[in-house]
Every structure is written in C-alpha cells, then in structure tokens.
C-alpha cells in the first residue's frame, strides 16, 4: 500500500505527466504557504516544484553558491527544461532564497504565469485581512492569465477536498503516538510528499485505503528505536529519514514544512472562502520566518510531550538562514527542558550518509544510556 506513494515520489516527473488530463493547466508551486486550493478550484493541477539529483552547474551561474542548495537545485531543474511543461509558477516571499529564485525564474524562464505572493510575518487580524487580499490576488491572477472564472463554490469544494486529505493524514499521524507505530517516519514523509505530486482526488482515495490498512495493522512497522522529533528545512527525500531510522532512531513526529505543516490544521470554511484560506495558511504551524518565535517553540514543546519524544534532530539545509538561526533559540529551549538534541546541517541532496549514520547512532546510544 505504501508502495504507491513511494513510487509517486520516486518517479515524480513521470507520474505528473501520466496524470495530466489533456487540456488541463499545470501550476507549479513552491512553499507550503501557497494556498493550493485556489489552483485546484481553478480546475488546474497543482504540483510541487523542487530540485533533482543533478549538479547545479547551470544554476550556480544565476544564483550564488551561498544560496541554499534547495533553490539552486530547483532552478537547475528549470534551466534543464524539466519544468517547461508548467503553465505557471507560484510562490511567496517566504525567505531570501525563494525570493531571488522567483526573480531569476520570472526573468529568465518562459513560464506563462509567474506569481509571488506577499506573506505576512505575523498572525494578527490585520495580517489575516492583508493575506486575504493576497489570496484574492492569486485567484485574480489565474483568472486573468488563463481567461477563467474561479467561483466561491469551486473554492468551497476545493477546501472540502483538501480538508479531507488533511484529516486523513492527521489520522495517520495520530498512530505515531503508539509505542510501536504502524508507519515509519520515512514512510509517512513519502505519503505526504505524494500529495504534492498526485491529483488530489486520487490521492484522497489512496489515503482512505491507507488509513483503513494502518488502523487495522496488527504487525507494527515501528522499529522500536529512540523516539525522535525531526525539525528542519524543506525535506523531500525520505532516504534521510530512513537513514536516521536505520541508525537507532524512530521518527514519530516532525516539524517540517513538507511534513506535518502540510496537514496540521484544517480550513474553517464559511461564506468567505478566501478569508478562510488566508486564516488557515497563516495560522498553520509556524515556519521560523514567523514572528514571534514563541509560537513555533510552543508547538515543538507540545509535540515532544504528546508524542513522548526522547530526542530532537535539527536538520537545516546549509545556508538556510531561517532554520539555522531558528535553531539557536530552539537549541536553548531544548537545553532548558533537558531534551537531548542533535544538529545535522545538510545539503538538499543527501551527502555524507556515513557520517550522518555515525552521528545518529551515537546520539541514540547516548539517549538510551548505552
């Protein structure tokens, strides 16, 4: 059952191509603050834009090497033509790296529709009102670029569909609270990532089946390892998590934008779907770009308690300023709470697997008192 999701992630480009309905527009998005529902409501196919395995030789001539490897790898894919099939590219001013990726993409790529949303840095009535206008602007941008109309009804339907995904994923996530969860951290990451590739309706059907299978699971998949919370920058390679879980760890919770942030909270749909979406996306678990940082720290403390976490692995991507600097106050918080933590600064593509394995093994040994 999990294999379907893993296959979607491994063959992501081909799977997207296999699922495009003739005549359907495909809109690439980057960053989990993008309200996908608007793209779905437009009858379009939203797909996550991310990097690949190739070296970033082309991208490095556009974006300096001090920019994170995620955006350089993503740009590399675009420059190699891997995203030529996209009709649009949507993102936000999430961080400096993504901002400049967008500027370069908009200037040098020939994507028909490019759009960057302005994302507030805090959650207040004022910022929700502002972000509502930004969600509306995205809607209007799609309507103008593709000569379509996105109705409130279609938005409400989209909200319902995405809420369903999130509810199902939350149900799966809850199972990780068990002593021996029926799904590993690596497997759940693939399940979540697959939702950024597969058409949403098909994805929901697969999730329904998976929930049924997991809840009835008698033989646990959990490896009995040290219960870990994984925190960090964008992660779309479950091999990293698998490595941790083969080194004595068991990832039972995460604070990842490609993980629990995707499904943690639902949209409270009412008569104003745009505002409802703005509210949901702003109020979702905080990225370290959000102010104040206490919101994020409080959530992490809650997860440590609720998932009976024994240790935290912080895994920022090198040059990811938000997560690297966000890790400073997180490490102090963990230290004050006497929660063991390990910081592994990584690259977008998995490198130094041997070193990571050794470090995680030592970390889990220390926690277990070995």
């Amino acid at each position: 059952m999990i294999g379907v999701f893993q296959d979607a992630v491994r063959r992501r480009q081909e799977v997207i191509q296999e699922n495009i309905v003739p005549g359907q527009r495909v809109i690439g998005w980057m960053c989990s603050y993008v309200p996908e529902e608007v793209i779905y409501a437009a009858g379009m196919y939203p797909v996550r834009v991310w990097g690949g395995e190739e070296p970033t030789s082309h991208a490095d001539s556009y974006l300096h090497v001090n920019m994170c490897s995620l955006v350089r790898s993503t740009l590399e894919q675009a420059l190699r033509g891997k995203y030529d099939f996209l009709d649009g590219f949507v993102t936000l001013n999430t961080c400096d790296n993504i901002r400049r990726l967008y500027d370069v993409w908009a200037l040098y790529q020939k994507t028909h529709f490019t759009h960057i949303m302005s994302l507030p840095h805090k959650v207040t009535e004022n910022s929700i009102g502002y972000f509502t206008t930004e969600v509306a602007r995205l809607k209007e941008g799609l309507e103008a670029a593709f000569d379509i109309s996105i109705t409130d009804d279609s938005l409400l339907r989209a909200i319902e569909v995405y809420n369903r995904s999130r509810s199902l994923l939350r149900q799966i996530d809850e199972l990780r609270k068990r002593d021996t969860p029926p799904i590993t951290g690596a497997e759940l990451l693939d399940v979540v990532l697959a939702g950024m590739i597969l058409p949403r309706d098909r994805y929901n059907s697969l999730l329904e089946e998976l929930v049924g299978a997991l809840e009835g699971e008698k033989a646990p998949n959990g490896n009995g390892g040290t219960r870990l919370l994984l925190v960090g920058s964008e992660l779309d390679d479950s091999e990293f998590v698998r490595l941790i879980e083969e080194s004595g760890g068991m990832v039972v919770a995460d604070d990842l934008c490609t993980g629990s942030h995707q499904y943690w909270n639902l949209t409270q749909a009412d008569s104003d779907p745009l505002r409802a979406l703005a509210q949901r996306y702003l109020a979702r678990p905080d990225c370290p770009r959000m102010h104040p940082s206490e919101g994020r720290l409080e959530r992490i403390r809650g997860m440590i308690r609720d998932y009976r976490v024994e240790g935290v692995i912080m895994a920022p991507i090198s040059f990811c300023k938000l997560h690297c600097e966000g890790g400073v106050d997180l490490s102090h918080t963990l230290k004050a709470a006497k929660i063991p933590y390990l910081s592994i600064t990584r690259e977008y593509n998995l490198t130094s697997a041997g070193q990571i394995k050794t470090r995680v093994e030592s970390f889990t040994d220390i926690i277990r008192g070995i």
Partner: protein
Amino acid sequence: MVTVQEGIKEFQGIVDRLGGTIERLKARSTAKSDLIFWQALRDYYGRALEAKEQGQPLIMAGMFPPHELFHAMDIPYYVAENHAIMEGQATSELREKLFDTAEGYGMPTDFCSPHRAAVGLAKLGMQLKPDLVVSTATTCDQTLKLYDLLADVYGVPSYLVDSPYRIDEAGLKYAQQDIKDLISFLEERTGRKLDYDRLKEVLRLSKEAYDYWEKLYELRKTVPCPVGGRAGIKDLTLIQTSSGTQIGVDYFKARYEELKEKVERGEGVVPEEKYRVAWLYVLPLFDLSIADWLEKEFGAVIVVDSFGYAASDIDLNPEDPIDFLVKKPLKRGFVCRGYAPNEYMHFVDDLAQVCRDMRADVAILLSHWSCQQYTGTIRMLKDEIGGRMGLPFHVVNGDLLDPRVVSSEEMKDSLAEFFNAVLKG
C-alpha cells in the same frame, strides 16, 4: 544574564570618547558638518545612556523601523547593527571576540558578520540592556531573526514592523495599520502617549534632513564628484540616529553647503578623476580605506554606493504621518527597494539607471558572503549593467565586517586586476 551596570559602563566610555573627539575637532580647523556629526552621535548615545541611568524606557531598534516615532515619544533608542558595526571596526581582537562569542551562542559562522557582532556584544554585556526591541522584516531573513535572538538574550518584549512584499494599495493599508499597532504597543509598554502634533513636527525635521540628503546625492552626479566613497555610510549613520532632530537637519544642511561650494569651485575628491565607480552594495566596513586606496591608486571615485543612494521618487508628507513612516524606508538605497519582486519594483533597472545618472564608468558589486538578498541579484545586475548597458562590471568577493572571509589585500588584488584590465582595454 548580563548586568545592567556593565552596559552602562561601556556606553559611558563611548560618550566620553565621543566627547574627546569633539574637543579635539574644536581645537583645530574642521568642516562644520564633521563637528556636528560627532556631536549628533554623542547626543544619540548620551540619550540612551541617560535613559538607562534614570530608569526610563530604552528601545533597541533595527535599522529601518520608524525612529522618528521614538523621537516623538521621547523614547531613546540605539540601533543594534550600527552599534555592532562601530564596535566591530575598533580592533580585530574585539571583532574576533564578538564573533567567537556569538558562534559560541550557536550562531553559524556564515551568518552576517554585523549580526554576529551584535549578538556578541549582547552576550558580553557590552551594550545597554533595552526594555523593548523594535525591528522590521526588511530587509532580509537574518535581520528578521537577529532581533528575535536579541530579544531572547535580553528577555524583553519585541515588536516586528512587518514589511509587505509590495507597497501597493493593500500593502500600504496593512503597513499603515501595523504602524498604528506599533504605536499602541509603545504606549502600552512605556506609559507614554503619542502626541500627533509633535510627531508631525518631528517628521518635518526628518523631511528637511531627507531633502538635503537627496540634494547631496544630486551633487555627487557632478563631474568631478565632490565627495568620496566613505560619505554614504557617515550620512546613513545620521539618517538612522538623528532623523527627526534639529541636529540631523543641521548636519545635512552643513554637508550640502560644504559640498555645494566644492562643486562651485570645480573641486573633486582626487586631482584627476579617471573613473566614476558605482559601488552596488556596501563598502567593506572593516576597512573603509579601500575607498581611499581606489582614489589614490586608480583615480577611481565611488560616486554612489547602496547606503548613499537616496531615491527621489517617494513623496513624504509630514501631514500624513502614518503614510510617511511606511514609505520612508523606500528612500533608502537599494537595500530597501530590493525587498520587493524585481518585476514590481524594477530594482535591476533602477540600479542601471543609477549608474547612468551618476555617469559611472564602472560598476563594482561587493559580494558579501552572508547576504543572499543581494548575491541572488548578481546575475541579473551583471546581465543588465554589464551586458545590455556595456558598463565594465566586476564582482569582488568579500564580507562586511569579517576579514577572515576575504582580507583587504585579497580584495585589493581583485580590484587591481579589474582596473588594470579596464585600463588596458
């Protein structure tokens, strides 16, 4: 946790040293603006010190929040980054101690060096403990997180003035409400009420200073340029410390009059101005003498840099204070105007136009190792200014405050190679 007394002692030392500088300047013939500069700086540090000694509220501010608001509410402040740069310029021993301390606190080594210095100062107790921290989302991720960290070090409340990614109608409305919320925050935390008439008066003074600052920028377009590369940073220091004060106006007026006289005499910075340089970022702050070296070695005068670029297309009206405070940062150099999509703010075209307006012969961009906000624009600027405009364009790798990344000598070698190639060409 650092003690209050340690910070007071440090600031008292600064005020005393500034006082000494002023006395020495008075004893010899010096430019009027120079004397005013040091007096303004002493007043600024003196106000902060007095607040602490008297148990009055003190703000630690970022570079871009509305400082005029603090003046209007009589709440002294000091800008953490400016202070860190000033201290970091003192000696290499101090600088490295600050970096080590910050890195020991957990800051990665690739973080912006002025920011590491700021955290180092905080952890070492070498500055006044604030009661509040007020910062902005402009202009980069590191600025955003720095003040979160500082508020955490000091255990004090903080307010982030958000920066919409476009100042369009909705962005303006959001930002205006945010400023109003800041006012409420300050009133609540300090017990002081904002007098809007007082604010308008402060803004009139601020505008007057900004108007002179823009005129200074216009004077730099003259051939030969009447002022050298170091000017921008000094001017910006007063923009940040003294906007909204009479002494701020006095400084810029004096500066303008001095430079106007030079222009009328046809006097440039160097005997023979061979190259006009558009320095498309900040000078390396740990060694500003690189600007002097360029002048002496190549007759190359930096006619504009990021800090010295005063945009004139933003109207500031003191009678509309909230609007004024929202739009004011956009006047300040590429740094603020680059916090927007290029397709919206056209900052690449903007900088190309700056090169034309300043009659630049060459464009140089210091690629500050930590600055993704800027390094991400290198290719776009190179293609536009170096490519389409055909201006000789050079990227010099470096760092703002950490010479261990790239030393002065390495930067000079890179610049010399470029200028020699331009000369031969």
